[in-house]
């Protein structure tokens, strides 16, 4: 048994990591729906979910149970195989893309093995290319769902989404080239490390400053790629009922839903890694006192949760919220008490904070901006985003060339 364990250690570690990441991503997805409903509700002066559990925190659980036990009818005349394949494809590809993301620079030592945060090996040369390869296949889930439903609204939604994703993929890929030129590598870890050349600069050393054009193009194109508002034309409810997933019910619909939220997370990861320094701290490296920022945030948030829970009306809330608050506060205290742990969690903490901020921006945009018209969408993608991203590539190339020619050695 022990020889089996030691000879297949890499395989077992990877399997455990996959299961863990799946669990984490699915939980985050569930609470992302809660977060989105809450934030959009507050933008629109409503309360959002607040009946199921304290602050509606158990709403995702209730939704999950509902999805599982709803009737799952298959409409007449659908192409059965493709109809079942489409949601599977969408979900599987969205989940695979998150496996490429590295979540921290340093490995943890478990039984003499270096375990890196993130599933892909740290020396994956084609990191960003592999991601684009997976997202390029993501179109099929939506296009095939629209086609196989044998219904006019899904077909129109599927056609729209295919056209939209093909158009915006060009701008998406071109806008990344500047970052790749600066880093000289496709590897996501190298891209982050290339932004750490001047640790005393902190936030000013990130790619977003030299690549501001690239970042704007990338973020807009990525929102269009993930079919989110204001680019959610494939499912424009005032025109197409629910677009490509009109005929899907129950868990097959949930699979599209999870796929969409997972790709939101992937895009947020990519934005923070490529343009916002990934796991680098925004503060200059010499400010060592900023290492206590995670603890301060966690402890103050934990104390707030305890205080909020104690004055909560329901018995359940009175128990659950303070317990969660105590756990969060204890976590913050652990980081202060053990400097080794604190040093290790700095990188994942900053990466996760940046991902969270981008997720918030996603929801914020959905709550604020009206939907594009279809011809506006196409004109915007082809006539503005693509030329601007190409100009960005040319400018970056010339800047790098000039630096090589005349810059300091």
């Amino acid at each position, binding site marked *: 048994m022990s020889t089996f364990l030691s000879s297949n250690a890499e395989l077992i570690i990877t399997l455990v990591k996959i299961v863990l990441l799946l669990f984490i991503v699915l939980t985050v997805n569930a609470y992302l729906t809660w977060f989105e409903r809450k934030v959009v509700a507050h933008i629109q002066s409503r309360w959002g979910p607040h009946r199921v559990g304290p602050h509606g925190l158990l709403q995702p659980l209730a939704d999950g149970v509902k999805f599982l036990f709803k009737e799952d009818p298959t409409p007449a005349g659908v192409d059965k195989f493709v109809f079942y394949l489409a949601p599977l494809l969408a979900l599987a590809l969205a989940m695979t893309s998150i496996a490429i993301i590295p979540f921290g620079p340093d490995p943890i030592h478990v039984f003499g093995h270096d375990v890196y945060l993130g599933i892909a090996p740290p020396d994956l040369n084609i990191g960003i290319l592999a991601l684009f390869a997976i997202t*390029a*296949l993501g179109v099929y889930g939506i296009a095939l769902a629209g086609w196989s439903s044998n219904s006019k609204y899904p077909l129109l939604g599927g056609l729209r989404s295919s056209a939209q994703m093909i158009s915006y*993929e060009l701008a998406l890929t071109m806008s990344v080239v500047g970052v790749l030129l600066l880093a000289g590598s496709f590897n996501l870890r190298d891209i982050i490390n290339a932004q750490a050349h001047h640790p005393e600069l902190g936030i000013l050393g990130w790619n977003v400053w030299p690549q501001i054009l690239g970042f704007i193009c990338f973020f807009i194109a990525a929102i269009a790629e993930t079919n989110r508002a204001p680019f959610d034309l494939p499912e424009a409810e005032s025109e197409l009922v629910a677009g490509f997933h009109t005929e899907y019910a129950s868990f097959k619909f949930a699979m599209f839903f999870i796929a969409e939220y997972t790709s939101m997370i992937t895009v947020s990861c990519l934005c923070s890694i490529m343009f916002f320094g990934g796991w680098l701290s925004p503060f200059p490296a010499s400010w060592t006192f900023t290492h206590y920022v995670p603890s301060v945030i966690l402890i103050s948030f934990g104390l707030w949760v305890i205080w909020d829970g104690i004055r909560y009306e329901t018995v359940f809330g009175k128990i659950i919220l303070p317990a969660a608050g105590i756990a969060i506060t204890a976590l913050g205290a652990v980081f202060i008490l053990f400097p080794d742990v604190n040093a290790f969690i700095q990188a994942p903490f900053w990466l996760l904070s940046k991902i969270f901020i981008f997720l918030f921006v996603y929801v914020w945009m959905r709550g604020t901006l009206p939907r594009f018209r279809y011809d506006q969408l196409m004109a915007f993608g082809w006539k503005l985003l693509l030329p601007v991203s190409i100009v960005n590539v040319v400018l970056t190339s010339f800047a790098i060339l000039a630096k090589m020619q005349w810059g300091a050695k």
Partner: protein
Amino acid sequence: MTAPLAVFFVLAGLAVIGAINLILQKHPIHSALSLIVVMVALAGLYLLMGAEFVAAVQIIVYGGAIMVLFVLVIMLLNAGIEEHTSISKLAGVPGLLLVAALAGFITATIARSTDVVQAAQQTGDMSSNKGISNMLFRDFVYPFELTSFLILVAIMGAVVLAQREKS
């Protein structure tokens, strides 16, 4: 059997089954899906040989861009189920002969494969992005640019053909 060899047989089997299924399926969408399976299986084979860049580009270009256009066109035209006609004798006899000849040629090539494989490996460093860039944009830059010119000619031809006649 070692693990890479097992993966090779799985991917190769997928590619062959996908290719056969492509011909046997009656609906254009199903055929297009089989072709996607072939493309992705080929990308897996490239990955197995250590050509990471080629594998990723194979999926992005063929699996992502070209096949999406195929599927989009099939959906737009709303192509229905095809009728399979019986195979013509003229196509059948020379076709079978050609298949036999091709299979024989490939087998013969593989049979004396060691030097072929070595020759393929000596053409350049295909595993690193730097090696590929050096080959494409330095060693073989003229053939590369000529090929892109060829594709441009094909695009122009398509535009000319698709142009409506002036009334």
